[in-house]
């Protein structure tokens, strides 16, 4: 008990932080329809920023020192992988299209919410029973987009439509936040609601610790990352930042069926991951590594090449080129409904971003030559 209270004292997170995290995670925020999540996020961050705006497609930005000419971005993405209603049969079953990289292999028998014109409608991914499935052994039918369907209880197309469900309605999974033993959190859409949470906590810590920054800090929660980094692409052009610090999730590669020779060696609980990649600015990465060393924050390295698969690419190659760095939090079971991460990594990633922001100035030398 004494040990537990000591651990709690050392935490940089407050009870209100956790309340925000749970609300934010449990709220659906599918790609292209992120507004309700953005409202929760902006409401939380507003006491810690000087001004804010939302761009035409819904990317939310909180600004500290909006009048400073030198601009630093800390960024996460707000959207969540989901499905679109694509076709309704005469029997009232619903076929789908992906909205982002949602995983067909985990879909059978999942509970979902269809966001229709008349509000949320519960449904399930139907799947034939083990007794009745056609085929067997290795030839057993595998789930794929073309054979996955939703069952709402409606038995005709009209009954489906009477529920307010239409072609183009988005579908999200039902599972929300939960805790496991030994400091692990699980939930749907930790990717990248945890990023939005962490950048909001950086803003909170700056305000509560009365830190003054020599530049404008833009806390960006971008939309539409999961379908091609589009929100970041738009907002990078609008803000035209001088430096960008991106946070997203990365794969814990220590679970079965992952090849470390290909994916590298990253584990939950061992600190944030820093990526080497052409889009990642070497000098800025060195600044972050120095900050991590000075503050005794553990980090794990990985390599990426042509693409980081994150908003880092959009910021780095925006405008005339923006020095960008990627700070990732290790995550197990990405793009499933049980995305799992460790709370120590959450705190260390927040600390690393916070200390990096404090270490930066308009005079920080980032020139390659």
């Amino acid at each position, binding site marked *: 008990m004494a040990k537990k209270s000591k651990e709690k004292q050392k935490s940089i997170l407050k009870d209100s932080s956790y309340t925000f995290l749970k609300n934010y995670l449990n709220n659906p925020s599918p790609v292209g329809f992120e507004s309700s999540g953005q409202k929760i996020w902006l409401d939380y961050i507003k006491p810690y920023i000087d001004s804010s705006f939302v761009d035409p497609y819904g990317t939310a930005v909180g600004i500290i020192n909006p009048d400073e000419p030198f601009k630093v971005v800390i960024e996460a993405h707000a959207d969540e992988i989901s499905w679109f209603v694509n076709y309704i049969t005469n029997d009232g079953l619903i076929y789908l299209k*992906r909205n982002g*990289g949602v995983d067909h292999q985990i879909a059978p028998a999942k509970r979902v919410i269809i966001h229709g014109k008349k509000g949320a409608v519960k449904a399930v991914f139907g799947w034939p029973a083990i007794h009745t499935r056609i085929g067997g052994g290795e030839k057993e039918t595998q789930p794929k987009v073309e054979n996955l369907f939703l069952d709402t209880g409606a038995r005709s197309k009209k009954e489906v439509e009477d529920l307010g469900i239409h072609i183009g309605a988005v579908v999200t999974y039902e599972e929300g936040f939960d805790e496991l033993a030994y400091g692990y959190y699980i939930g749907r859409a930790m990717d990248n609601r945890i990023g939005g949470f962490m950048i909001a906590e950086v803003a909170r810590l700056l305000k509560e610790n009365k830190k003054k920054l020599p530049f404008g800090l833009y806390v960006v929660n971008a939309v539409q990352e999961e*379908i*091609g980094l589009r929100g970041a692409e738009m907002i990078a052009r609008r803000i035209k930042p001088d430096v960008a610090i991106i946070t997203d*999730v*990365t794969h814990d590669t220590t679970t079965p069926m992952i090849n470390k020779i290909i994916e590298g060696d990253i584990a939950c609980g061992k600190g944030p991951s820093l990526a080497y990649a052409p889009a990642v600015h070497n000098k800025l990465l060195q600044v972050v590594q120095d900050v991590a060393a000075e503050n005794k924050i553990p980090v794990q390295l990985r390599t990426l090449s042509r693409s*980081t698969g994150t908003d880092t690419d959009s910021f780095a190659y925006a405008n005339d080129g923006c020095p960008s760095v990627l700070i990732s939090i290790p995550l197990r079971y990405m793009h499933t409904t049980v995305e799992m991460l460790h709370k120590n990594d959450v705190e260390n990633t927040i600390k690393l971003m916070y200390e990096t922001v404090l270490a930066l100035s308009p005079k920080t030398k980032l020139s390659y030559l």
Partner: protein
Amino acid sequence: MLNNLLYIDPGSGSYLVQVIAAAVLGVAFYFKTFVAWVKSFFGGKKNVSDKEEKINE
């Protein structure tokens, strides 16, 4: 005399059956591979995953 011509001893008979079975299967597999090659050469149906966009983190 006629009966003698129809006689095939057991050793030669099973050998002949093996040769015929191998020939039939060999031809079948050759054409299966050839048809698959022709299909892929002329842009036959790709896997679903090939058509889908890159999955971001």
